[in-house]
């Protein structure tokens, strides 16, 4: 049986860009993202989507993305997970993820108070992962999507987004969810135990351009959301990432190219009214040993 490679290097592209609805109405970009690689085993990726109608959700999403990333980095160190080469149990991860989210919510409350901003005006969703070559720890509140791949042309969703009856009806870290029942219902955590070759986190502004989310179901004669990552979107972009890695582009150069793609690389992205954020992370090929 082949052994899992416990160390790996990764190429990441991450950017948040304005949708043309916000450009037309002079609203700031309300999405934020944060990406960190504390060591050569583990990495952290976070995407936050500020509520379209919350007045200062750009500040909220920025604050939450940075704070969650910080909490998760601390979590790795404190629990010494960064020296582990296996995933913690589901129970341990859930407990720690909920703690990190609650702490971030408390800090956001203090920030709101100090700045004199109503907490609802900072509303945003949260998608966060801790990843390693042997799996992913995932948590999320609200909508957005995430995809992963363990083999070429094989992409799956990491979780189901929370959606209400209406489009964009969702919950936020600022919502009234911090009760035992609320956490049970609205804070999702999971563990993926698999050798991941690539993954992506995205805000809902990117979902129509990269996931099958609203397609006709012939058998049931209705539209449905299969929550299916679109292979013909992800595979060519993985190839592009490997090319950028081969050309030894800097992180800044990669992010600039990626932001350009999210802005208008496809017709859908070009016309999308909502802000768009996507973090795409691809495992680098193992270098051939010198003869």
């Amino acid at each position, binding site marked *: 049986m082949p052994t899992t490679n416990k160390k790996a290097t990764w190429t990441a592209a991450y950017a948040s860009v304005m949708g043309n609805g916000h450009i037309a109405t002079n609203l700031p970009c309300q999405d934020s993202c944060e990406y960190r690689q504390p060591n050569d085993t583990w990495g952290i990726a976070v995407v936050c989507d500020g509520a379209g109608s919350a007045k200062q959700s750009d500040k909220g999403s920025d604050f939450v993305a940075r704070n969650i990333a910080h909490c998760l980095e601390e979590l790795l160190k404190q629990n010494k997970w960064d020296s582990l080469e296996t995933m913690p149990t589901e129970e341990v991860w859930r407990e720690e993820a909920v703690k990190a989210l609650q702490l971030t919510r408390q800090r956001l409350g203090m920030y709101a108070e100090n700045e004199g901003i109503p907490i609802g005006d900072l509303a945003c969703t949260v998608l966060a992962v801790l990843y390693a070559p042997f799996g992913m720890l995932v948590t999320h509140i609200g909508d957005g999507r995430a995809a992963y791949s363990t083999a070429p042309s094989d992409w799956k969703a990491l979780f189901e987004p929370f959606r209400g009856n209406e489009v964009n009806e969702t919950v936020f870290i600022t919502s009234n969810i911090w009760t035992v029942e609320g956490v049970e219902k609205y804070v999702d955590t999971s563990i993926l135990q698999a050798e991941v070759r690539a993954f992506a986190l995205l805000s809902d502004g990117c979902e129509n351009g990269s996931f099958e989310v609203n*397609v006709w179901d012939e058998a049931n004669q209705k539209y449905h959301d299969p929550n299916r990552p679109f292979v013909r979107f992800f595979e060519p972009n993985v190839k592009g990432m490997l090319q950028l890695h081969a050309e030894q582009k800097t992180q800044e150069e990669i992010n600039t190219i990626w932001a350009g793609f999210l802005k208008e690389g*496809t017709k859908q992205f070009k016309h999308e009214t909502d802000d768009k954020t996507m973090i795409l992370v691809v495992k680098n090929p193992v270098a051939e040993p010198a003869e």
Partner: protein
Amino acid sequence: MSYFTGETPDNYEQKCLCTLILDTSGSMSGQPIRELNRGLQEFYAAIEEDLIAANRLEVSITTFGSNIKTIQEPALIDNFDMPTLNIGGTTRLVDAVRQAMRKTEERKQWYKETGQPYYRPIMVLITDGEPDRDQDVAGLSKEIQAAIDSKKFTFWGLGVKGFNHQVLNQICPNNAPALPLSGYKFSEFFKWLSNSIGIITQSKEGESIDLPPVSDWAQMKF
């Protein structure tokens, strides 16, 4: 060179219904109806130019004078030409709004049955007059407020020169009082509406919506 060449999946667009309830009573004759017709044509053209809005926005039109007619059932603008309105008769405003509310609810049910994701519908009432005496303004007011409270739709009432401000305000929900149109600036109003649709379609549950300023077309001093 292009590094990223990912293709786009073929997703069916989510729907946003905008129901227009338009006063075509006799008092709208002359410049008001001419300007309203021009505004509607410009609204149509603005949506047609916006690829995403054209695929998401369904428009329904109910007119009222002595008769109430839904002259346009909910449809994407690709599927109909904007009609030219004719005027005549009295002002059966309340009956017209009720008919439009029924049509809106029916469409929502159809979205649900067919599994189509939808934004909260937008209802826009435009009137220059006073409802006929037999019209149940108080009853309608309660129905609209209850619908707003249960998040069935958003509602705007636009008053054209000579409208009864008190009555229109009574009809409008608490969070969106009647808006008086400056002169006959229907063009500016519909431009604002098409811009606002982008914001409305991003609104999230339970939060207030910040729309672009209405200063281009609303008369804010009474």
